[in-house]
């Protein structure tokens, strides 16, 4: 008889324990939710290609007064900024002054225009300035996909051997300029 009472006691004990499980699960959820509410919403998809080399590519010129872009341009030993942009992208207008500032500070900026017509590119550059030494036309987002960029504008720091060292998502604000210059220095 004692064996039966032992098992029924054990069963009673287990019974008592499991009633707390739903509450514990809820507390776990509430903690997670509370934490997430304090975090800013992260909508960006970061590239996993940081630290990896640029792919082999060769893009035709997007503007009449600048040459096209190919992988060879990134292998000359000098770190550069790769700016992924488009004329139909509104934040790109906002970052135009910062790009000028970067160019004036000695950074070389190569641009890749995503899904853009030459006329629109020319119009944008006429209105907002042209900080680029070269501009490539990526009509099918091929290079954009290859480097893990998911939108415009994005700026990449490429070192002298064509390896991606840093990704900046979104438009470049005034406070980002020193940071990017520093990254360029580090990439030497």
């Amino acid at each position, binding site marked *: 008889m004692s064996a039966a009472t032992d098992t029924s006691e054990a*069963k009673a004990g*287990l019974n008592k324990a499991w009633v707390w499980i739903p509450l514990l699960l809820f507390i776990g959820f509430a903690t997670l939710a509370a934490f997430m509410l304090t975090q800013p*919403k992260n*909508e*960006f*998809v*970061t*590239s*996993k*290609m940081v630290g990896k080399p640029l792919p082999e590519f060769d893009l035709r010129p997007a503007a009449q007064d600048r040459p096209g872009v190919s992988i060879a341009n990134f292998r000359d030993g000098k770190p550069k900024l790769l700016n992924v942009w*488009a004329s*139909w*992208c*509104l*934040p790109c207008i906002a970052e135009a002054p910062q790009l000028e500032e970067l160019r004036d500070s000695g950074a070389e900026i190569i641009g890749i225009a*995503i*899904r*853009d*017509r030459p006329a*629109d590119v020319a119009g944008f550059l006429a209105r907002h300035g042209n900080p680029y030494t070269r501009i490539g036309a990526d*009509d*099918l*987002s*091929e290079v*954009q*996909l*290859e*480097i*893990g960029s*998911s*939108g*415009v*504008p*994005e700026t990449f720091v490429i070192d002298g051997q064509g390896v991606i060292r840093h990704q900046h*998502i*979104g*438009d470049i604000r005034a406070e980002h300029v020193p940071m990017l210059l520093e990254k360029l220095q580090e990439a030497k």
Partner: protein
Amino acid sequence: MKRLIALVLATLLAGPVLSQSAVPPAPYAYTQLADPAQEAEAAALMLTLRCLKCQSQSIADSDAPMAGDMRHQVRVRIERGESPEAIRTWLVERYGDYVSYEPKVSATTWPLFAIPLLLFAVAALVLLRRLGANRSDSEAETGS
């Protein structure tokens, strides 16, 4: 149609893209492959790849231009003879697990598989205890 969603959601996204490009869609964004078997393979793959500019859609269900470009890549590569898994790996190498809906066991996703197994074990346990025990008790019990 997804233009709408892409637009609405794009306005919620802090950074990029607030309007649409004027360049026409990629050749294979809205055209099926000639070989039905290859097209079926491509379609199956596209349903499991995530549109990066949308809130919660596969590239098969989105009209965003970038989704179209991704569909173009998928179809071109399938036509070239690449396997769907190779294409998926190519995208995951660039965007991480976020771009793929296909559940893969990895350091970041193992709970998704462990927990259903755990649930299965718990369910079996609950059922055995509740139903198995009763068979022997029901004779002894007079009902309470």
